[in-house]
């Protein structure tokens, strides 16, 4: 059951990324390009996604997940060095190519060879991050 609902969640995520235009690197770079031809679409995507998600967090309060286990612990209040350094590095890569992890997966089937190159490099980066993560916990 867990993989089934994982698949359903992933399919909703992938469908949403596809129809919202967020797998189009020009739209993402256009949103970041405040001094150029600014494209506000990403703000509508983020707003549309936050609404059902905020309802979900409210529903989760005082309950347990449908398939058992526990909900994630309340958000960690500390903004650490790793969070800031990591987000700056991520943002730089996001701006350079116009792709973040979700859309890079959603566009694999039709985006062409460059998307496979991106995902391969991203996975290499994720593995390269292991020793750095081990030295600096995420909240420090």
């Amino acid at each position: 059951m867990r993989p089934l609902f994982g698949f359903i969640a992933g399919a909703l995520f992938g469908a949403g990324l596809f129809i919202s235009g967020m797998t189009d690197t020009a739209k993402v770079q256009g949103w970041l390009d405040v001094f150029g031809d600014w494209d506000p679409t990403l703000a509508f995507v983020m707003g549309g996604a936050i609404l059902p998600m905020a309802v979900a967090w409210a529903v989760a309060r005082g309950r347990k997940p449908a398939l058992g286990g526990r909900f994630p612990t309340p958000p960690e209040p500390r903004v650490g060095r790793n969070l800031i350094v990591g987000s700056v590095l991520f943002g730089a890569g996001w701006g350079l190519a116009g792709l973040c992890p979700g859309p890079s997966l959603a566009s694999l089937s039709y985006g062409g060879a460059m998307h496979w190159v991106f995902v391969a490099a991203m996975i290499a980066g994720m593995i390269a991050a292991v020793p750095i993560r081990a030295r600096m916990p995420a909240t420090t």
Partner: protein
Amino acid sequence: MIEQDWIWGFAGGVLIGLGGAVYLLVNGRIMGASGILGGLVDGSELSTKWERLAFIAGTILAPVVLYPLYREVDTHITGNVAVVIVAGLLVGIGTRLANGCTSGHGVCGMSRLSLRGIAATVFYILAGGMTIVLFRHVLGVI
């Protein structure tokens, strides 16, 4: 027409949020693309590998079904392979150091008013904006 893009953006966003709601309320997990993939490729979260693999399969396969309904879909990705590799490495390292990306920190974190989610989102947007200024408007490489 750009306004129509906003409507599709909002509709797609709602689907993304529904995906996150299912993953939270049913599986009890935060829907973050970098965490779901990262925990698999670095071997740190293999006890939940099947729901992670299934999530990734759904993300990749849903557009396969939708693609034929669209007349043309262009991702406009750069043809500069060096830029793509550097960008991919930065996204991979950065999201794992920060423990999240646009979906985990942006959608799931901000929707529960997580300070870390909001801070991460501010920093990756600022860094992305400055990257565009530098590499597009100053250096002209992207």
